[in-house]
């Protein structure tokens, strides 16, 4: 484990609590001698996926949208581990985080393979980094919400040929514990 990309989907960074926590995770990872790249999605110039499929059949592997997406794709695909970080909002990670996740289709190949009796898109790259979730709960978050989020990110890992290694919460885990765990993968 050498290089980590953190995708911070906080959409209210002015509230500071969540983004401050993520900043601490970043620092603790660095003190574990890891290379860390943090993207604060909400403050970047990013557009939503248009479903145009240029990245599949016009400019293979490249997204047609001219914005900051490329830096994120480049960092993600060349990392050893990804952290999806977001406060839960309406029972799920933020629209900002989903905005960039939708566009990860450019990292896959359109060709289809069968896995677990399901259709999936084939790999474009040899290796897709495993990922972990760091979430902040809402006032009304319950066990069912957490199960649903894990379920949906489990689907993401099937699609992206990788593994979800953890789902941690800012309420119950210390930044140094998470950093320590990651450094031992």
């Amino acid at each position, binding site marked *: 484990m050498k290089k980590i990309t953190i995708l911070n989907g906080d959409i209210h960074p002015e509230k500071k609590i969540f983004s401050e926590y993520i900043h601490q995770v970043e620092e603790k990872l660095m003190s574990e001698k890891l290379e860390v790249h943090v993207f604060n999605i909400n403050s970047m110039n990013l557009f939503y996926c248009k479903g145009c499929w240029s990245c599949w059949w*016009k*400019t*293979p592997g490249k997204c047609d949208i001219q914005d900051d997406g490329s830096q994120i794709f480049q960092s993600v695909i060349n990392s050893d581990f990804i952290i999806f970080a977001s406060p839960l909002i309406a029972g*799920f990670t933020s629209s900002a985080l989903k905005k960039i996740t939708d566009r990860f289709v450019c990292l896959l190949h359109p*060709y289809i393979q069968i896995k677990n009796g*399901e259709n999936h898109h084939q790999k474009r*790259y040899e290796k897709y980094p495993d990922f972990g979730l760091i979430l902040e709960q809402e006032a009304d978050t319950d066990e069912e919400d957490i199960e649903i989020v894990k379920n*949906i990110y489990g689907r993401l890992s099937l699609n992206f040929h990788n593994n979800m290694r953890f789902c941690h919460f800012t309420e119950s885990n210390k930044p140094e514990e998470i950093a320590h765990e990651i450094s031992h993968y």
Partner: protein
Amino acid sequence: MKLAIINGSPRYKNSNSTLLMDQFLKGFSSKSEIAQSYLVGTENKKKALADFVESDTVLIIFPLYTDCKPGIVKEFFESLLGVENSVQKRVGFIVQSGFPESIHSEALERYLQKLTKRLGHIYLGTVIKGGVEGIKIMPPGMTKKLFGQFEKLGSYFAEFQNFDPKIMKQLRTPYKLSASRIFFFNLISKTGLTNFYWDMNLKKNNAFEQRFDKPFSV
């Protein structure tokens, strides 16, 4: 019934969601007032939120993105948190995907049910339909059954203000690929035929030779 239909396709009006919605509305043909809106663009988003507030029944249709709702649909859900609930609404969803099997949409379905509850509304269910990509270019014979099902879904909805459970069940099959379908896929994949749709479009765009490019490898 005051019905609002919100189309969450990132492809805006030129989408498979729109094609299916048109069939639904053909069957619906009731005197009820229908407000239609989209989620692409700031003005459209405002209209969608206003339509949601002013209606008593809401249908939200969108494509499956990474086995989940697309980002713009999530953004819309977030905007609903700020809405004062004066009336409890009846809310249903239609999720369509490229892959044929409904297992891809199952986790999302749980989310949509929970979201409706969280917002304090009545959940009408989620219609799940896979295998939708490409319907725009299919000859009418190939889409006749699917379009007929959506038309029936619309006429049933006009009469009962709910989704027809029989059609819902038909639409969500297969759940997973059958053994025979997997066998068939493996057989024809050796001929390259399973890549036909992609290859055709890659060639049309003079991009076939670049199809395995890895632009972000360092």
